[in-house]
């Protein structure tokens, strides 16, 4: 339902995010200048003369001032042109469209896992505060947050792929290859990614639900004669939904970042391995294109969450 209040909220947010996008891409562009290494040397090949390197630099506009390079790139973006990879010559937008679905499948599975496991755990702990169940969930959650996901990933590969060969150790299959093979390949990376997210969802949900269940309005609900089940499922969950949405947003952003490492471990041709490869070789157009895509996705998700806030909490988004 796009009410007038919500449309106004979306308009206001869009105005706010424009400078964020420019700033994010500008910072990434700036960081590349600080990192050692030169793609012209790579492109020129072995035993290239200084003159040849300078020629290549001029060819790709790498000899121009920093602001001019950035301005040129930004101008292209405004016209829907993210440029071409300096290394492979492939159109950046095409690579992004090819590789993003691979990463999104893993991140999506990880998010689904973290909600499917984290939410029941959080509810279980919150409805029995101080009990053994609560202590168990809390310690599992601490463990999940503390485990480095690349280490967990290697452990999973060693056990389930190399030892028992239930899952493939590396690679990915797109959804177009069929749901079964795609999920089979996505399973281990998703689990490795999800461990921390499950813990985060369970912990956050537990603490906000405990707070809601001990609130004065919940005491009123008891005084009205409602059953604990009705109080939990009807009132408890609606009251924590805003917190839960916030956690989902944060977890999604983090998963998107963490997939860079996980894709490296599993040799998955997603957006993460693409940006790592580009960063090592200073392939500017690719790095910029991926960063822009990530920023846009994060911003779009946050906007969606902002709108959803107003659905669950009538106090948000009004004049």
């Amino acid at each position: 339902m796009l009410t007038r209040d919500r449309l106004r909220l979306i308009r206001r947010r869009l105005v706010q995010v424009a400078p964020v996008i420019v700033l994010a891409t500008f910072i990434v562009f700036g960081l590349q200048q600080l990192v050692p290494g030169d793609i012209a040397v790579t492109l020129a090949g072995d035993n290239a003369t200084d003159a040849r390197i300078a020629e290549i630099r001029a060819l790709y506009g790498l000899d121009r001032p920093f602001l001019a390079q950035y301005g040129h790139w930004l101008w292209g973006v405004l016209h829907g042109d993210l440029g071409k990879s300096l290394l492979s010559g492939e159109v950046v937008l095409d690579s992004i469209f090819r590789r993003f679905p691979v990463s999104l499948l893993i991140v999506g599975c990880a998010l689904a896992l973290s909600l499917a496991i984290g939410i029941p755990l959080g509810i279980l702990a919150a409805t029995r505060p101080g009990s053994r169940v609560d202590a168990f969930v809390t310690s599992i959650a601490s463990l999940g947050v503390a485990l480095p996901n690349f280490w967990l990933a290697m452990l999973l590969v060693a056990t389930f792929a190399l030892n028992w060969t239930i899952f493939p150790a590396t690679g990915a299959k797109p959804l177009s290859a069929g749901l079964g093979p795609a999920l089979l390949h996505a399973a281990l990376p998703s689990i490795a990614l999800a461990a921390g997210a499950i813990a985060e969802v369970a912990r956050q949900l537990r603490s906000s639900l405990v707070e809601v269940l001990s609130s004065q309005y919940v005491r009123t609900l008891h005084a009205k004669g409602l059953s604990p089940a009705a109080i939990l499922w009807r009132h408890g969950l609606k009251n924590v939904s805003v917190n839960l949405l916030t956690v989902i947003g944060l977890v999604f952003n983090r998963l998107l970042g963490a997939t860079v490492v996980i894709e490296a471990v599993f040799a998955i041709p997603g957006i993460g391995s693409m940006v790592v490869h580009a960063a090592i070789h200073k392939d500017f157009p690719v790095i910029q294109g991926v960063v822009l895509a990530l920023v846009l996705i994060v911003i779009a998700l946050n906007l969606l969450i902002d709108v959803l806030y107003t659905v669950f909490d009538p106090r948000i988004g009004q004049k």
Partner: protein
Amino acid sequence: MVTADSPPLLDVRGLGIFFRTAAGEVQATRDVSFRLEAGERLGIVGESGCGKTVTGLSILGLLPRAQSRVVGAVHFEGRDLLSLSPRALRGVRGREISMIFQEPMSALDPVFTVGEQIAETLRVHRRMGRKEARERAVEALAQVGIPLPSRRVDEYPHQLSGGMRQRAMIAIALSCEPRILIADEPTTALDVTIQAQIIDLLVDLSARTGTALIFITHDLGVIAETCTRMLTMYAGEVVEDAPVDSALERPRHPYTSGLLRSIPRLSARKSLLPSIPGRVPSPADMPAGCRFRPRCAHGVAACAATQALLDVSDARRARCIRQAELDLPGAIA
């Protein structure tokens, strides 16, 4: 007033409330006994920390189960509420006995409309469809004097003023026409002019529907205006139980007398009363014998023994060994 052949509507006997704390179990109230007749308006008065609120909550079993223990009996229509199953108790809450609270903003669920919160009470206790429950919610809002009830029914608590919220709270509590309404400091958080309106509304509704009121407050002025009986609590004990008029005129316990003389400046925020030195002892640190003795100007050697609630007359009791001999000043000097 109390006759042998008609049992009272509510009969609280020897109510003792214990809380588990890190330092062990402490007793918050001891031997609290009182009766409430149908249609009666009972005021429970005392300073903060005297056990008024926990007494009200314990009647409906609303104290946190994991951290509290309640002994004694609360007889209501032939049943002891303290020994009812959780399921049976839910059938009493909101239908037979309702409760309203001090802070109407935090006592209402912020993400449900006022109408939904009234309707769900009706739907829990009466088999009722959504449409009918909504119509009844509008009627309930009109009954508590909320203007434009058919519009207010779809508004959220934050869209209402403090007084309107408390009216909505009362509408929820009275939606199932309960026999008893427990009002815990219902006007403390409101402006003075709104306070008077809410009190008038409660008295008016209780007179019209025959709902008995238990009015928990630190404000003796409110009790003088609204109640028929007055129960004075001090340090977890009932120290005086009397008809309001006679208690105001001639209190039988030095604490009641001290409270009455403090009326003009009595405030919940201040823990010191102008006419009574000292402050309420904490539950973990109760004086032996008469609990009021350290603050009392009339103490004698016999006060060192544990005091019983003594009969003053048929309708009056006081927990003071000198109740017959002392001539204590009341509110009407």
